[in-house]
């Protein structure tokens, strides 16, 4: 299957959750140093669950579709499950073949999510190499 599969293009054209949310408990922004794509994520966490999620940003079809699909997936999930969401899970969520040159586009949403959750617990943020290492595992 092609990277520009219909479901990717559909999310790209009609992104879900692309708006600010009320009573957010965390906000976190990440960018892709290679291309300047930006992604700002907002989460409302209540009783250990992702109650609401929103985002804003600009970038390529893959990163924008990726955050749209990711937030659709994690809304309502428990924080402990979302924390375990791995690059492998992101690959299967996207469901298209990824080449090296597009890995950072594909994983920018995941990096933003991981780091938003880490930030909420006062932990150290994850770096790109650390995230890409998990993809090798």
């Amino acid at each position, binding site marked *: 299957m092609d990277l520009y599969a219909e479901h990717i293009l559909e999310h790209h054209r009609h992104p879900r959750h692309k708006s600010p949310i009320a009573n957010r408990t965390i906000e976190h922004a990440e960018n892709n140093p290679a*291309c300047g794509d930006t992604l700002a994520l907002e989460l409302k966490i209540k009783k250990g669950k992702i109650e609401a999620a929103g985002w804003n940003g600009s970038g390529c079809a*893959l990163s924008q579709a990726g955050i749209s699909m990711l937030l659709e997936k994690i809304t309502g999930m428990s924080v402990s499950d979302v924390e375990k969401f791995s690059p492998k899970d992101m690959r299967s969520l996207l469901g298209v073949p990824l080449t090296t040159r597009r890995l950072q586009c594909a994983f920018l949403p995941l990096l933003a999510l991981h780091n938003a959750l880490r930030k909420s617990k006062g932990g150290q943020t994850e770096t790109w190499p650390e995230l890409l290492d998990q993809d090798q595992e």
Partner: protein
Amino acid sequence: MALDSAVIRRQFPFLQERKHPVYLDSAASAQKPDCVLQAMDTFTRTRYANVHRGLYALSEQATDLFEQSRNTVRTFLRARHADEIVFTKSTTEALNLIARSWGHATLRKGDAVALTILEHHSAIVPWLQLKEEKGIEIVWIGIDDQGNVQREELTRALGKGNVRLVSVTGLSNVLGVRPPVGEIAAEARRAGALVAVDAAQWIGHHPISVRELDCDFLAFSGHKPYGPTGIGALYAKRELLRSMPPFLGGGMMIREVHRNGFTPADAPQKFEAGTPPVTEAVGLKAALEWLEAIGWNDIESHEAHLMRVAFDTLRTIPGLRILGPKTPDGASGCVSFVVEGTHPHDLTDLLGQQGFCLRAGHHCAQPLHERLGIPASVRLSVALYNTEEEIRALGPAIARARSVLSK
């Protein structure tokens, strides 16, 4: 047109591959002609030795070749002396050398360095590092919408009296514009400031004379003018190099070393610690000689024609906006653009799938992209081996890519 592109293309093994893509990314790195590859291969296979060390004939010959390469660079840049040429790893290292050596030794808090908004990150970050370290000031010189440097901003900055160096690109790696480096250098000199020129893009497209420019520093890389990666050079006026402290410590850069101190060698060796890129120097020499043999008139007229074709082709595409110069005579080597509703990454990925190599991103010029109000752009760059047909074929390819994203 005097240049026979079939003859040029035959000299590039890359273009002899049965299925090769249309390569429109020479501003990032150019393909290599046979003569460069052969020179490096022959040297590595049969003449290889380290330089400036052995007293045996083989090492002496390698040293001769290395120094001949330095002299070829001198001739190519129209510099007065071969010892004004320091070999580096790249333009980036050469520009860092200016900041780390000259800048570190002479700049004080309150001194300023003026940069145009066109500059590549390698001409920006070393000065930002000195800003953090020593509190120097960075003064930005803006551009108009066509990419021309705002000369009155430069005049105003120089009028303050604290600008010690002006760093300016000779050819923008995004907009293809060519700031009037000679005039800028003259004005800077009258204000007591030095001038550093980033010639990374300029070097492969137009002749350079550091004597005519009367610039203080000029940096370039080997792999843009059809030579190898891993080698670049810094030109600096002889008296400047004499006054500058070494940049890296190690072998070859010293006169003597004792347990409690050292005396550096003379320039250029003072700045060439460690085993230099000898094979790459041999390749660079071959590349520069190859370019000079083709002749600048033919190079310039061929590439000017390609730029006209590029503008013609891009202008027919709905929703496409060319950044900077309005006409092809204002741009050289490259032209960048954005297409409404299409992210540069998606566009170049889809073009890549159709066999066209173009670069997308901020091209290591984020301040320029901020000024242009866009996060990224697509760049089409041309070289001697490109043809009119290759560029014309890009029009339908962009249309096909857009239809994938907007269907």
